[in-house]
């Protein structure tokens, strides 16, 4: 798969927050055009940080890429602004929803199309598309985002990003807080866009099971380093991945009820 030049090439980046907190310690990853790549890893592994580095949202968090390089279609992008990235078709769905609280759901969605130049009609087509993806949003279109439920906000955030008609979407924990049915739908949407419109996805996800089912390739991040990568199918078969990320031991899925019976063991890397 590494034959064609990657769309996104992250090369050994280091990220430091607040001048002192070193979070990414040399992360490299590639995403080819039209691929769905999953970024996996536990809490605090650095998934969000990686995505922020790509979309250049670090500044507002007082973080900075201090080493390494990020290239999009061969162009160095560390110096660009987030708006420039969106103009190049790369949109991030931020973790934790971040809807515009005082705007209605529909206004939220429409702001997503801020960068589009292809006219009102096209924007409205996309809006309709988003509403068909998420009928719940249509029902709540007139409510201020702050007064919608957590899941509705999550849908709104995803829908808002889609409104930009992106070439590449950075999805940060899309499934969080969504009902199982909707999770499924979200991933179907990912697949749909990926196959029909060749949209590329880089998704950070805790729901490893889902992510690996829909992704082509996966990276596992621990403690700010990539500890494992491979085709999604391969990863799914890996024993460690099964054990720690899919929750299936040698003898099949273990009930959450039984977790008490064994003491959590140390991870395979320190």
């Amino acid at each position, binding site marked *: 798969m590494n034959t064609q030049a990657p769309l996104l090439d992250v090369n050994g980046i280091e990220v430091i927050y607040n001048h002192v907190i070193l979070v990414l310690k040399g992360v490299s990853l590639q995403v080819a055009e039209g691929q769905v790549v999953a970024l996996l890893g536990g809490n605090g592994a650095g998934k969000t940080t990686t995505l922020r580095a790509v*979309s250049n*949202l670090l*500044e*507002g*968090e007082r973080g900075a890429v201090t080493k390494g390089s990020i290239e999009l279609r061969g162009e160095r992008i560390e110096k660009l*602004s*987030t*708006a420039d*990235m*969106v*103009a190049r078709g790369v*949109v*991030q*769905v*931020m973790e934790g929803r*971040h*809807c*515009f*609280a*005082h*705007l209605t759901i529909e*206004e*939220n969605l*429409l*702001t*997503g199309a*801020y*960068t589009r130049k292809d006219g009102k009609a096209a924007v409205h087509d996309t809006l309709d598309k988003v509403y068909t993806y998420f009928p719940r949003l249509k029902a709540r279109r007139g409510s*201020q985002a*702050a*007064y919608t439920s957590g899941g509705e906000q999550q849908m709104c955030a995803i829908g*808002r*990003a889609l*409104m*930009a008609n992106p070439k590449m979407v950075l999805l940060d924990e899309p499934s969080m807080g969504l009902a199982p049915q909707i999770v499924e739908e979200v991933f179907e949407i990912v697949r749909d866009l990926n196959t029909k419109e060749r949209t590329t996805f880089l998704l950070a996800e805790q729901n490893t099971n889902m992510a690996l089912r829909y992704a082509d390739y996966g990276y596992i991040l621990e403690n700010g380093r990539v500890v494992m990568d491979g085709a999604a199918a391969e990863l799914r078969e890996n024993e460690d991945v099964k054990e720690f990320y899919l929750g299936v031991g040698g003898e099949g899925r273990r009930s959450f009820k039984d977790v008490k019976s064994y003491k959590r063991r140390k991870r395979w890397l320190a």
Partner: protein
Amino acid sequence: MGPFLETLIGGLMAGMLYSLIALGFVLIFKASGVFNFAQGAMVLFAALAMARFSEWIPQWTGLSSKLLVNVLAFAVALALMVVLAWLVQKLVLSRLVNQEGITLLMATLGITYFLDGFGQTLFGSAIYKIDVGMPKDPLFLLEQTFPGGILVGQEDLIATVIAALLVGVLSLFFQYTGTGRALRAVADDHQAAQSIGIPLSRIWVIVWSVAGFVALVAGIIWGSKLGVQFSLSLVALKALPVVILGGLTSVPGAIVGGLLIGVGEKLSEAYLGPMLGGGIEIWFAYVLALVFLLVRPQGLFGEKIIDRV
């Protein structure tokens, strides 16, 4: 009845003048969530520029048409305000993306100090004059009905019309254009706005320029009323209760708030003041605002303060 009407009208018009300044606050707050402390300094700066250029331009070019000179000075001053907006964005705001409101407020305070010093270094600190031909003498209405007629300041009348116009245009802009929507989005969440490609820098230059324009208009009106000198920056204080009463995010609120405060303080001063020893209008304005807030904590037209878990 005559005196009452007079006070009422005086209050209404004073209120409009406050609104003009309040408008600047509202614009920037609404569009970036920043409480722009520097609005007063911007008014002074703009007025100074206007006053000095209308003095210098004839000296440099030998122009004598007052109208032409004023138009030119206005253009130069406006250009200056746009440059200022760009600098503020470049040097200050863009480096404080996603910081809390209070930090940004503090930054605008820094801008205030800077502008106060810079404006006076550049333009001097004596009293200057803006003469855009505003009529100064009073107008007496209904002289038949009331002894002595009802006094109306012509200058105030003109200011009122201008303020009303500005407000009308700006409210439409915010409510109905895509840029208006983007501005409101930025105010809600800088980072999320960035994430969907709203270029904060451009947005900020736009709002600060518009606020600069409003400051210039306010500066000209107030400046031709009071003379252009340092105290002009202090009239911003008068606009505070207005903005808060009207709602920090509401353009029409700035007007209604202005009218209420204007009328409230003038009437209180006229009818309560003598009993209490005078000078009560300042605190009365705040108390009035406070009373309204107790009923509507977000101001008359402000967006509801959202806290949800």
